């Protein structure tokens, strides 16, 4: 019986190719793969024709599915290749890692321990301190602890996550993917790389181990280095350099490879030992290259056996591990989530490219043939050369999509150029570097930034996987998937516009579906325009973009219900409990209504709204909630589903505002006044959309009363005056009279300025031509004391802040025309008085107020 270890690089397409050859040669009768044992039962689905990677295996604690551990697989991932191979050959295949159940069990235990410790230590501190900054102390201690070891930890994590990347760096190549391609290209047979990886990894890990053990023996090390023979591994790596690197890392990190590491490897050895007892003759073990030396139970290499503890120790380590209850399932995944840049440690840089060179490889074809029980085909469209041309053609297409010039004829030039470049760089075929450079020089006019703008589409892609419909899934996931298919919504990552016509039944269903998805924390669609305006209309405009994490979210939401309606309704109720203010509750109502949540949920929401409305006697609250309520009412009425509960609450709040409007309008600073004015404007808008003229009258009555009240803040008076004019309650003449009256009583100038600000709130062309009003105002201005005038200038200018240049100009013309009219009607007398130097002196000042030029500049003119 033999056991063969195949140490791979996660998601390394080159390793996948090598693995196919190696497995064919070795012809195993049992396969063990690094992965969570909870997933073993789900392996069989990998054989389904419906299964299309990228996919991810998720294993989650049943009590808290959000903590799911995610194991992504791409078509070009060696682990995936191993699974498919085993299925095709009908040999047993199992995941062999430490169960996720134990991992989370341990995590919980550690967390519980930490909490207990904290409690204890908190008890020892003086009470006062604990009250003041108990948490802060805890935080800062943590932080300093972390920063101490950070550098070493980072290093060792990066080595562990991508040990072959480390080899690549030692070999002088910055890019592990390119290195992998090259090494496999150069190996005598692709399968020959695995023994070489194993040796190199043994070297690396033994050196780490040594260094951690004998940290003190620095001297010996220097001796060592001088005598170190420059041995080269089969991979063309200087082993002494590797050893040196390992030592420096071990020194920086204290040899700490993480707590789980020994457990995981013990568990994997346990699985191998168990497999050896099954009677299998040729066992193949596929694991991350890092683990390979620690799993090679049959090693006769003394160095390697130093990494492998006795069975009894492994067993002791694994005995009595705490565990939680877990479940496993497949979910579709995406290439973009395999991107290393998204922070996925085992990620790769260019998933789309790796997928393509894997797809066109002979090994992929052999594996496909094996899986489909047919003979491998020769197909020249499936050649590496075809892949390079496709790459460049796609680059040109994406550039054209962005309206850049990229003639198809140039693709051929670019391909030829990439070959010349590869030859110059001593490669037989262009690799991704050469292709990128060719795309930059030939297609992007030398601009790397331009290439950067298409890189994501080109090298990462938007590939989204699919899983078989019979794979295990929660009832909720199945319900959502069925609905999604029925409504013909595609799971696409790239944001797309979706316009919905609510007059059609499917439109309404789509809208409802998407809104419910938002309630379970899977905001698939976001409104493209301000929804407040859209509500009530028959059109909804959304942007939809699927995220693979939604599948995890759905698993998590499953505990709230078996259907989307149920889960969304229950989650809305849960959310409701966290809401504080009336306005917050109202915001939820606005989302809940169009989502058509179930009666139970709506009833609870309304009850809460009613209670809050009754309990709070605050006018501000009411004012804040009313516009949203009005929109919700209108939403119901346009759909023939007016809700009497809502109308009752609206009436109550509306009445409160009408009766006690004055309360919110007195003693305000200008800033607060502005908020109030904004709310009042919204309220007017809302009532207008309800087309409820009775209520509008009531509201305007209230406005009139408050506007005439002396105590009302002048900013608000200005705004109410404007509103009354806009709604045709007051005529232009009334307006001018009120202003004249207001000014006539020797009102302090700053209040006049406030009034003006309120009056001008929210712009509007209509008031630009109110000749009478501007005449009154102008008269007031002209009579101001010079000092007072200068003092008030900033306020006056602020009033015109929101005016556009065009509006200012046209206001200027209005004022100018006032005098033009005068001079026409009154003849030369006024015309000559207009010539008065004093009058002329006023022009720059008006100009200053309206134009915003600096005053001294204006004076100089």
């Amino acid at each position, binding site marked *: 019986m033999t056991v063969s270890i195949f140490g791979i690089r996660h998601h390394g397409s080159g390793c996948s190719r090598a693995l196919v050859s190696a497995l064919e040669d070795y012809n195993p009768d049992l396969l063990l793969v690094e992965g969570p044992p909870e997933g073993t039962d789900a392996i069989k689905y990998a054989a389904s024709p419906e299964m299309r990677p990228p996919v991810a295996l998720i294993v989650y604690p049943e009590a808290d599915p959000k903590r799911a551990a995610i194991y992504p697989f791409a078509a070009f991932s060696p682990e995936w290749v191993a699974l498919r191979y085993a299925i095709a050959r009908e040999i047993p295949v199992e995941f062999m890692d430490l169960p996720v159940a134990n991992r989370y069990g341990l995590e919980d235990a550690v967390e519980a321990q930490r909490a207990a410790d904290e409690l204890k230590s908190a008890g020892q501190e003086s009470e006062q301190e604990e009250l003041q900054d108990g948490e802060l102390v805890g935080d800062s201690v943590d932080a300093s602890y972390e920063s101490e070891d950070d550098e070493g930890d980072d290093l060792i994590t990066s080595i562990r996550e991508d040990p072959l990347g480390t080899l690549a760096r030692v070999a002088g190549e910055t890019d592990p993917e390119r290195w992998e391609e090259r090494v496999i290209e150069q190996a005598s047979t692709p399968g020959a790389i695995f023994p070489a990886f194993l040796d190199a990894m043994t070297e690396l890990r033994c050196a780490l181990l040594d260094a951690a053990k004998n940290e003190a023996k620095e001297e010996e090390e220097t001796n060592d280095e001088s005598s170190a023979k420059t041995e080269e591994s089969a991979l063309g790596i200087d082993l002494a350099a590797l050893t040196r690197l390992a030592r420096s890392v071990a020194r920086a990190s204290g040899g700490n490879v993480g707590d789980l590491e020994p457990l995981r490897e013990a568990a994997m050895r346990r699985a191998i030992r168990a497999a050896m007892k099954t009677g299998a003759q040729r066992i193949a073990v596929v694991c991350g290259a890092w683990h390979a030396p620690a799993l090679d139970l049959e090693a006769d290499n003394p160095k390697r056996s130093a990494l492998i503890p006795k069975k009894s120790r492994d067993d002791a380590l694994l005995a009595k591990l705490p565990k939680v209850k877990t479940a496993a399932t497949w979910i579709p995944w995406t290439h973009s989530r395999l991107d290393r840049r998204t922070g996925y440690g085992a990620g790769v840089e260019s998933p789309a490219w790796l997928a393509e060179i894997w797809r066109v490889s002979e090994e992929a074809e052999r594996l496909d043939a094996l899986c489909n029980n047919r003979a491998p085909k020769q197909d020249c469209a499936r050649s590496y050369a075809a892949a390079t041309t496709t790459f460049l053609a796609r680059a040109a297409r994406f550039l054209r999509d962005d309206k850049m*010039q990229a*003639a198809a004829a140039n693709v051929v030039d670019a391909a030829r150029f990439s070959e*010349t*470049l590869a030859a*110059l760089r001593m490669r037989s075929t262009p690799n991704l570097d050469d292709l990128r450079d060719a795309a*930059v*020089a030939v297609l992007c*006019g*030398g601009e790397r930034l331009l290439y950067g703008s298409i890189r994501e589409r080109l090298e990462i892609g938007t590939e989204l996987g699919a899983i078989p419909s019979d794979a295990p899934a929660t009832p909720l996931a199945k319900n959502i998937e069925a609905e999604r298919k029925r409504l013909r919504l595609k799971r696409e990552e790239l944001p797309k516009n979706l316009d919905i016509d609510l007059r059609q039944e499917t439109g309404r269903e789509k809208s409802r579906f998407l809104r419910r998805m938002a309630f379970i924390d899977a905001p698939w669609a976001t409104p493209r325009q301000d929804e407040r305006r859209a509500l009530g209309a028959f059109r909804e405009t959304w942007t939809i973009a699927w995220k693979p994490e939604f599948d995890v979210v759905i698993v998590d939401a499953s505990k709230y219900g078996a259907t989307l309606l149920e889960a969304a309704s229950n989650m809305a109720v849960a959310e409701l409990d966290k809401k504080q203010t009336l306005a917050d509750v109202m915001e939820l109502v606005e989302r809940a209504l169009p989502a058509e949540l179930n009666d139970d949920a709506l009833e609870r929401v309304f009850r809460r709204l009613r209670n809050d409305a009754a309990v709070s006697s605050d006018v501000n609250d009411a004012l804040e909630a009313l516009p949203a309520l009005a929109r919700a009412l209108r939403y119901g009425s346009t759909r023939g589903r007016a809700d009497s509960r809502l109308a009752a609450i609206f009436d109550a709040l509306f009445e409160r505002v009408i009766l006690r409007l004055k309360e919110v309008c007195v003693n305000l600073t200008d800033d607060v006044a502005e908020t109030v004015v904004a709310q009042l404007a919204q309220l007017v808008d809302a009532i207008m959309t309800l087309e409820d003229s009775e209520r509008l009258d009531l509201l305007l009555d209230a406005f009139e009363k408050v506007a005439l009240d002396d105590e009302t803040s002048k900013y608000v008076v200005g705004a109410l005056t404007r509103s009354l004019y806009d709604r045709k309650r007051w005529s232009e003449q009334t307006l001018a009279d009120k202003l004249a009256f207001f000014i006539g009583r020797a009102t302090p100038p700053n209040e006049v300025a406030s009034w003006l600000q309120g009056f001008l709130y929210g712009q509007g062309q209509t008031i630009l031509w109110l000749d009478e009003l501007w005449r009154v105002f102008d008269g007031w201005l002209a009579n101001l004391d010079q000092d007072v005038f200068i003092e008030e200038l900033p306020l006056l200018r602020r009033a015109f802040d929101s005016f556009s240049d065009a509006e200012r100009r046209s206001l200027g013309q209005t004022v100018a025309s006032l005098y033009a009219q005068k001079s026409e009607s009154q003849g030369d007398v006024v015309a000559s008085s207009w010539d008065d130097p004093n009058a002329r002196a006023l022009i720059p000042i008006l100009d200053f107020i309206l134009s915003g030029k600096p005053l001294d500049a204006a004076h100089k003119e």
Partner: protein
Amino acid sequence: MTKTTASQSKTDVSTSVIRQHAEQEYAEELAAIREEDVYPKPENWLTSPKMTLLYLLGGKTPKGKEISPKYVGDPKLMEMAIATLATDRALLLYGLPGTAKSWVSEHLAAAVSGDSTLLIQGTAGTDESALRYSWNYAQLIANGPTPEALVESPTMRGMRDGKVVRVEELTRVGSDVQDALITILSEKTLPIPELSSEVQAQKGFNIIATANNRDRGVNELSSALARRFNTVVLPPPATLEDEVTIVQRRVEQLGRALQYPVEKPAVEELRRVVTIFRELRNGVTLDGKTKIKQPSGTLSTAEAISVVNNGLACAGYFGSGKLTATDLATSLVGAIVKDPGADVVAWREYRQTIMKNREDWKDLFKACKEIDE
């Protein structure tokens, strides 16, 4: 062809010329490289692409002959430039002023064709005949259109001999004249209708054009022409160290040629000059902590080189024979202050807020201040 043009007479190497062509100045390196060259060469290339790369980037030949680096920066860019010449696409070197476009173009031509003199200097006045051919009118009138009356352009010679032709500042050439290049590049022939003949390009012919970022929009290449070029953008030196190396190397070279009676400048001195250039160019101090007003000039590496060079001349002929802050200050200020308005403000601010506070910059600060006052 009996016509001798200025460039042809230069084949006899005389060491007293102020500036030698690359193939003359580096004749020794090129000879060594060619002798050891075992790599495949495209037809009519004197040096293989692989060894041309060595010539540009510097290093050691297999037999150990030291080759000086010509270009300091990302090797990728030189690989792309050389590979371009080996395909049948033309090469456009593009970038900010003073980023070694002309320099690289000259060395490429020297290595590939052994001749960097097939040169067309692009200006607004460059006409089609500069790219194609013109006539010797005396002969034309006397004998009518004959081969003897034809004055060849560098392009025509490059095509006939299978050599690299250089076009400097391509974007300054008028668009209609640029169009003449399209035919040459796509047809690889130059028709001479007056003689009912044509010149067919031999293998090895290609064009290296340079164009300047700052000239953008002057006569932007038509898309038809742009499509025939591979563009390689040469960036300003990435790091302080790179730029100091470049300046040091060029200054030494020029010093050797010009033979100033002066000691080699200390690296520290160069580092200060380059630091000033980089900080003003990037609008931020090297440590990234302080924002700086940027003057209007490009403040290219080439200008840094000439500042140091002028300084050396000053020191040699009027000074102590050793480069001091005073020798540098005049040309430094001259290089930075191009526009007497805004540049003065930017420069003063830099001097007072940045230079003044650097402990070991006191001498330079004082020298600069004296000039400004």
